[in-house]
């Protein structure tokens, strides 16, 4: 299906962001069952599967132009949202190549890449970019290679160096995070940056996930879904900018929860990079207003059960307690007690 892009939407101030019916139906709903608990929910990132956002290596959707404009604003205000340590330069070029090749291959009507030896020609039609450069020579690009390409791809990214049987977050582009800070985490190891997460350490989730990732193979990316909730469709919910979005959370009421509150799902994919042997972590975020989500009947019912029964420590970690009851009450009328199929599929073709 041809991808059509919306004109620029906003993710701050007047929040013009909304999902088309097609975007709602392809939303990566994260709950295959009626309950939720942390687990090593990882699988090979192969095309096709439970949701259409698995069809491409890196999914681009109708919000592309607005996402990239919002990233540019955030970077303008805080350049430290993009940092890469010097020993990751090869990984920067690996990332640039992987993203350019994937985008050109998956969306030829929007992106194209022509290689002539190390002379490359990149065209990004939606952002009106036409760039010739020399691969491996960063002075031929307007930004360093990692920043250059991640300013043109939705979602956050981090770069992990592998050493001492561990992964270290030695770079990233993070402008749409769920309340964590690259500037704080940069240089940390896998267990260190996961430090604040409750329950999962004790359950051995991070030990197993790390062992799995250390063996990640080139050409065999893997994926998982993660989720949280955000007041208003705001991409930049960073600790640095808490004063901006904290009050918006406090302003959620039973009356406005359906319109303002968003489920925020991250499609996380992990890719072994060939030259550097580093791992690229892509955190591709999707937002959906609760009033949009309830247009899919199965999801509305399941949301009610998951949020109602969520472990208090997970709710606390995700910042839900203040409005959790409003969310439960919002979904309760949809839950008629029916049995739902397991799996995340929408199970309806239209809205």
């Amino acid at each position, binding site marked *: 299906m041809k991808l059509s892009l919306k004109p620029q939407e906003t993710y701050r101030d007047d929040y013009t962001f909304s999902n088309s019916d097609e975007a709602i139906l392809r939303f990566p709903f994260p709950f295959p069952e009626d309950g939720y608990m942390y*687990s*090593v929910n990882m699988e*090979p990132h192969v095309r096709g599967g439970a949701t259409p956002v698995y069809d491409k290596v890196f999914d681009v959707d109708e919000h592309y132009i607005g996402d990239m404009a919002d990233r540019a604003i955030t970077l303008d205000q805080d350049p430290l949202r993009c940092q890469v340590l010097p020993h990751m330069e090869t990984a920067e070029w690996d990332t640039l190549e992987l993203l350019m090749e994937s985008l050109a291959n998956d969306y030829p009507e929007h992106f194209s890449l022509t290689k002539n030896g190390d002379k490359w020609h990149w065209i990004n039609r939606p952002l009106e970019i036409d760039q010739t450069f020399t691969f491996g020579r960063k002075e031929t690009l307007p930004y360093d290679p990692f920043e250059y390409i991640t300013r043109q791809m939705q979602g956050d990214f981090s770069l992990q*160096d592998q050493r001492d049987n561990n992964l270290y977050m030695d770079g990233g582009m993070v402008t749409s995070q769920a309340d964590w800070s690259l500037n704080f985490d940069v240089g940390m190891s896998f267990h260190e940056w996961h430090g604040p997460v409750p329950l999962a350490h004790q359950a051995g989730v991070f030990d197993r996930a790390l062992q*799995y990732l250390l063996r990640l193979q*080139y050409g065999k990316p*893997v994926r998982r879904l993660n989720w949280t909730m955000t007041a208003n469709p705001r991409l930049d919910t960073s600790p640095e900018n808490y004063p901006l979005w904290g009050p918006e959370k406090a302003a959620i009421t039973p009356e406005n929860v359906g319109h303002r509150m968003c489920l925020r799902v991250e499609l996380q994919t992990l890719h072994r990079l*060939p030259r550097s*042997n580093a791992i690229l972590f892509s955190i591709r975020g999707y937002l959906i207003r609760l009033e949009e989500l309830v247009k899919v009947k199965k999801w509305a019912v399941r949301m009610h059960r998951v949020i109602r029964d969520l472990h208090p420590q997970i709710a606390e970690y995700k910042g839900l307690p203040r409005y959790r009851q409003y969310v439960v009450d919002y979904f309760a009328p949809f839950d008629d007690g029916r049995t739902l199929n397991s799996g995340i599929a929408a199970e309806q073709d239209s809205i």
Partner: protein
Amino acid sequence: MKLKIEAIATLTPGIRKFTLAPVDGSPLPHAGAGSHVVLEIPGPSRIWKNAYSITSAADAPAYEIMVRRVEKSRGGSAWLHDHAKLGDVLEVYPPQNLFAPQRLAKRHLLLSAGIGITPFLSYVRLAGLAYEFHHCCKPEDEAAFRALLPSGPQMTLHTSRHTLNLEALLKSQPLGTHLSVCGPESFMDMVLATAAHAGWPAAKVHKESFGGATGGEPFVAHMKRSGVTVTVGREESLLDAMEAAGLAPPCLCRGGACGECKLTVLEGVPDHHDHYLSEIEHAANDAVMTCVSRAKTPELVLDF
């Protein structure tokens, strides 16, 4: 992927170099410094799968590997020396890297012997790598190896064990140096023992490995409830074999971490390779993770 032998060169009487290029001219997956490929080599009774370090650059249009004829060869290297000819097409698995250079190292001490030179040929090609490289070989192979190696004060070729004073070398390295070693097991063991003795921390010592814990001896698995029996081949997982037999066993990560594929073992002893079960559960031997684990007994009976 199918690669054809595009060139063969004899470097020494015991070492041949092969150039492997895509059959259809399509670009190859990049092989970063330290990568290896696994080749399927046809043998009279079975297919051999041998791993070789890639010595060409990451962006090269073809892979170069070097193959030493193994005395009393198991088969693979003998075939490559005696039968392989230009134009032969081989099945080659995409490159993997279990010996990538440490990007944070201020300096690298590279030690190799004989065919162990191969991964370091890709290391020394990296721009700006600060290294000291010692390679040991037989006197009669000196000229051949010298032609492969860079020249300069950072490079020393040894044709006698006596000119390489390992102990002194390992004791005199500046802080921040990482040691990488590749060669025959006996050589690597000696270097590692000397390094440990000289007080090198394990995190700064790296030994070439091709890993590959996936395969193993074939075995048979009986599925008690479904009544299906599968034979698990040398290079496939129990999960793969079950799927190939038309079963749909549970699974998710396919890498021994998520726990989805756990099945109860009714008879036989599993050979555990997963990260999911605890040590106690492993010792109990009453469950198996089908995506990575195998069998220690010729047969397993599973509750599926």
